[in-house]
């Protein structure tokens, strides 16, 4: 960890002395699939690489039922991007994330891209599966909210990346763009229904570091996405990711049936007509083949999503920062980890959370955001007992550097 930080800081120090260009502008015509390259980078004359990254930190004060853990401070992630144009239409980018103060270091993306035609690009390496929008477009500075969307991190376990290959392409005509992506990667494993969360928990597979070395069961995981964008109104995407998640045989001996996990997502982002108000949202459906003989505590259907409404109330020079923006924002989100009914009673299975998050954000520049969120969660346990309301205030920043 220390060595890694030293290396990064050393590289940063050396390269910063040669910094020539700040590509701080974000391409507004890009689609969600371009998010991985649609970031501010610094490039240098004498180095064949461009560097970037972001840092976020925040404080939280949460409580429920009259009890609070008090005020605490977090540094959820420090992320470094390194990209390189190897040759014309051949490029490489990696994203390395240090989470929770370095407790976890993850290569979230490390892929090689080669363009044969705008509609036919090849990508291989550690890729972020294009399921929903948030998984590929998760940089903190792009969002007005401190917490990542619940469903996008606990049903789709963003950032969900894996080793594999695939193709993608994009075309645009007049005010429309169309894109597709298709990848084969390693997938999930049986731990998703053996989690200490006491519910089907797709993020559990992220704990399996071997997924970058080998598939858990030898069956490739397929991810497909298509998106269409109107440059005036916005983009909508449809994606699916599925495959067999469990180890059903070993050494030629059958251990279990092949059990599938399928995740379908719809995402959109755009502006309300005749308004500067932005809408961003994603909704996810996951179907999991949980053995009928396992506990119903572990659901076989999960649902959830969010919608962010962001309205800039001031966009002008503020405190000597040109082009500053003050936003009012609201996030509405919902996640249900166990859709269905109890076999014993026919009653509804709950295990869900609703959240409302009003927010104020201030952007002295497009790459930096100061955020104040007021979060209210209503959570009901699997039986549907009276909901536990959790309320909290969060303040923090997220900035590209």
């Amino acid at each position, binding site marked *: 960890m220390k060595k890694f930080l030293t290396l990064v800081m050393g590289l940063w120090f050396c390269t910063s002395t040669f910094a020539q260009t700040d590509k701080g502008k974000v391409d507004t015509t890009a689609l969600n699939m371009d998010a991985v390259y649609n970031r501010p980078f610094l490039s240098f004359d004498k180095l064949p690489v461009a560097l970037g990254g972001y840092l976020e930190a925040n404080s939280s004060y949460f409580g429920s039922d009259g009890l*609070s853990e008090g005020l605490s401070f977090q540094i959820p992630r420090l992320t470094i991007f390194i990209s390189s144009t190897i040759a014309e239409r051949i490029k490489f980018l990696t994203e390395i994330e240090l989470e929770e103060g370095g407790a976890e270091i993850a290569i979230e993306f490390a892929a090689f891209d080669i363009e044969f035609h705008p509609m036919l690009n090849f990508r291989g390496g550690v890729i972020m599966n294009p399921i929903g929008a948030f998984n590929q477009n998760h940089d903190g500075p792009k969002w007005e909210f401190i917490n990542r969307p619940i469903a996008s991190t606990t049903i789709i376990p963003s950032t969900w990346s894996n080793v594999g290959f695939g193709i993608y392409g994009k075309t645009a005509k007049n005010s429309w763009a169309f894109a597709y992506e298709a990848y084969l990667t390693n997938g999930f494993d049986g731990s998703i229904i053996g989690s*200490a969360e006491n519910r089907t928990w797709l993020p559990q597979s992220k704990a399996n570091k071997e997924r970058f070395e080998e598939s858990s069961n030898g069956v490739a995981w397929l991810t497909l996405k298509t998106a269409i964008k109107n440059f005036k109104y916005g983009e909508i995407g449809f994606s699916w990711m599925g495959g067999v998640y469990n180890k059903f045989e070993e050494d030629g001996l059958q251990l279990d049936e092949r059990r599938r996990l399928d995740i379908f997502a719809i995402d959109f982002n755009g502006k309300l007509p005749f308004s500067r108000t932005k809408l961003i949202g994603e909704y996810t459906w996951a179907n999991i083949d949980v053995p009928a003989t396992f*506990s119903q505590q572990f659901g076989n259907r999960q649902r959830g999503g969010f919608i962010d409404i962001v309205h800039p109330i001031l966009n002008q020079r503020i405190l000597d920062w040109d082009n500053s923006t003050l936003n009012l924002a609201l996030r509405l989100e919902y996640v249900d980890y166990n859709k269905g009914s109890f076999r014993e009673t026919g009653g509804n299975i709950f295990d869900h959370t609703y959240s409302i998050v009003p927010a104020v954000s201030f952007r002295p520049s497009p790459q930096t955001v100061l955020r104040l969120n007021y979060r209210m969660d209503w959570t009901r346990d*699997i*039986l549907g007992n009276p909901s536990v309301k959790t309320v909290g205030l969060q303040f923090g920043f997220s900035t590209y550097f």
Partner: protein
Amino acid sequence: MLKSRLILTAAVLCCFIVACDELIPPAPEENELLDGPVEGLSNEENLQFLLGDIAFNDEVFTPETGLGPFFVAASCGSCHIGDGKGHPFTTLTRFGQAAPGMNPFSNNGGPQLQNRAIPGHVPEELPAGVVFSRITPPANTGLGFLEALTDAQLLSNADPNDLDGDGISGVPNYVTAPDYFVPQPHHQELNGQYIGRFGKKAAAVNLLHQTVNAYKQDMGITSEFDSEEPSIYNKPNQAPDNVEDPEVASSTVRNLVFYLRTLKAPIQRNETDEDIIRGKQLFTQAQCSSCHTPQWTTPVSDVAALSNKTFFPYTDLLLHDMGSGLDDGYTEGSALTSEWRTPPLWGLGLSENSQGGQIFLMHDGRATSIRQAIAMHGGEAENSRNQFTNLSAEDQEKLIAFLRSL
């Protein structure tokens, strides 16, 4: 102008932050909660309570940490949400014993069915034609007070031959205690057996016995107290899981037992309400209190907070014949198949907050209202049931209101 607006906004936000404590949703009234420690624990005891709370409510077993391979639930909290009564989805099935004595299936699947299994395994099935009972998990509250009572106190209410002629006997369930049971001065041995006081048939002699059984039979978790996985019917060669035993540390078991011992007793609500006072009088008049003994006082305990405390569980911890309607044909220890331990009534009014907005009463959750539960009382309780039935509708409601206040 802009600067002023920004300063004003910042000032408002600062006030907002400073007022953090005001943001937190208020705590429910203490008498609305089943969980929480008894008053008067020392700091050291508070720490042990918290460790036990984590073991009970937060520790979820997985196949990697020893769950199963055959089990009923993956954690204690799954069956006792909020320390309250359980739901039919975690109802247990016990089988095999049709008469007082030993369970003939104790080494072949009994006494409990493990009706779930980790992936790749087939759960246990009931042997054809075997006797069985379904058992809904009880609430955990106030258990330390019940455990602290002496055998002599319990026996003072026993009347096996109904010498007082009130139609109510009340007998203790003498059971064979496990090897790790260490008798205390207040325990009385009879032919090598001890009085059970926990479980629907009172088959567990103390909370350690109850807890070790639950780890093993409910979750398939081995401990130093009982290092064997539960036996599975017709699978004598069933390999255990691949997790080193014991799967739970003795310290964790002891912390959990301490947690159960020191959970507070439920607090009655609206006890000064006239209808509830009248309901309590009717409860006594109908002789419900002959078995549902309202009040006890603990002797001196090693936990000061449990010493010399008067509490109101509404149970005598004895077995009573409840009639043929509740006779499943299954039993444990020296109990007859129609005999059930008087369940404590404290916390009854809060049951729906742990059972998903409904209530499931009696030993297997078959009653979905207090009125239904009363109607199912037979045997020694038949007279009380009839007295309730003969009350006016208004008085019946008052008696039920009293029960809901507990």
